[in-house]
């Protein structure tokens, strides 16, 4: 393919990935990585390395708005990063070793399975805007893991407090491993921990997950970049396109229902995951 056309297509596809990623809070890597492998014939480790770039651009573009609006809980996010960062470092290291061992096909199949596995998590998100506060665990109490935000829809300040910190740390470590291995945000797992284990309101969970995704991706990207698995000529147009898509997505988000967004995301990921698995099996 002509290089100029290749770059243009990368920017356009990345706009789509950033758009979907910002609307779902999942980072966009789940769409971008399979497309890089299937459409752009990129090797799987370079696609994963580029996936981190997608997440970094989405997270910085949309995360800054959530921080400005005090929706991201900096205290809770930074506390949980103590689990996601080592997880991501471990995951990225495993990916590099699997690549060195010529097991990229296995990685491709695992990526497809993991992407399919995120779908029930995306669909099963709790439908309660503000949870009933329960008792606070000792760690959450000691670190003051509580806060408040102004809800524009409810037109009032909503206080909240985190419940159980230890189970959330365990889920976050797993989310870090998945993110580091496959270059995806693993936002579905992060939101699960924030909503279910920590009992946080839906908006705070989504915004804090977005806030954390960037740091988790920085850990994975750092390893993949240092190991030479990020191609700058591929990654640069992807970063530009993703940031543009995320910018437009975050502007459109208030006008769309969560359900609509998921109905767009799910079929796209199913098709791409199946394609990736078939490639890994040498069928496609």
């Amino acid at each position: 393919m002509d290089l100029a056309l290749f770059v243009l297509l990368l920017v356009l596809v990345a706009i789509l990935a950033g758009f979907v990623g910002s609307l779902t809070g999942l980072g966009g890597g789940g769409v971008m990585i399979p497309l890089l492998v299937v459409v752009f014939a990129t090797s799987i480790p370079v696609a994963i390395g580029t996936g981190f770039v997608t997440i970094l651009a989405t997270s910085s573009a949309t995360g800054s708005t959530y921080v400005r609006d005090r929706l991201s809980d900096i205290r809770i996010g930074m506390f949980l990063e103590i689990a996601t960062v080592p997880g991501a470092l471990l995951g990225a290291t495993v990916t590099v070793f699997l690549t060195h061992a010529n097991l990229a096909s296995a990685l491709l199949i695992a990526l497809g399975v993991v992407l399919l596995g995120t779908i029930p998590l995306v669909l099963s998100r709790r439908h309660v805007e503000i949870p009933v506060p329960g008792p606070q665990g000792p760690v959450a109490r000691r670190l003051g893991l509580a806060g408040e935000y102004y809800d524009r829809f409810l037109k009032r300040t909503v206080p909240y407090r985190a419940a159980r910190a230890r189970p959330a740390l365990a889920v976050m470590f797993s989310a870090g491993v998945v993110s580091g291995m496959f270059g995806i945000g693993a936002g579905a797992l992060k939101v699960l921990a924030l909503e279910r284990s920590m009992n946080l309101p839906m908006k705070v969970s989504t915004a804090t997950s977005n806030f954390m995704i960037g740091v988790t991706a920085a850990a994975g990207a750092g390893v993949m970049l240092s190991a030479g698995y990020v191609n700058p000529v591929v990654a640069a147009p992807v970063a530009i396109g993703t940031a543009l898509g995320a910018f437009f997505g975050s502007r459109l988000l208030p006008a769309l229902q969560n359900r609509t967004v998921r109905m767009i995301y799910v079929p796209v990921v199913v098709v791409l995951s199946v394609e990736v698995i078939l490639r890994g099996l040498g069928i496609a």
Partner: protein
Amino acid sequence: MTTTEVPVPSSGPPPHPLPAEAYDRMTLVLRLGLGIALAILGLGVVAYLLQHPGASSSEVLSNNPILTYLSLSGLGSGLANGSVGAVLTLGLIVLVATPIVRVASGLYYFRQGHERAMAGIAFAVLVLLLFGILVIGPLIR
């Protein structure tokens, strides 16, 4: 979607909420970092296309120049020579560094608020990130 009306929790905001300045600074860090990274990357992509007219995507996919520019000396000499690969690598480094600077600014504000436990956590996250990038990555290359 249902909305559950709730009583106000007995323990509301943390005893030492982060100052508004912390949120403003972190917003600025994320926006500035992304803006600078995208400006450098955009410049690099245009320059690359101008330098490689008629090139094919397979040439790009089979030649990854990044390892040349990952050391300080390699990046410095590449930028001094006007290498487009070095410019693109610099843009990616700024993109990766943006959330790391955000963690460092969190550490600063937790220290300012004399929150030893949270400052310790932020410091540990920062050390882990730098360890991964500076030690693990080059070690397993």
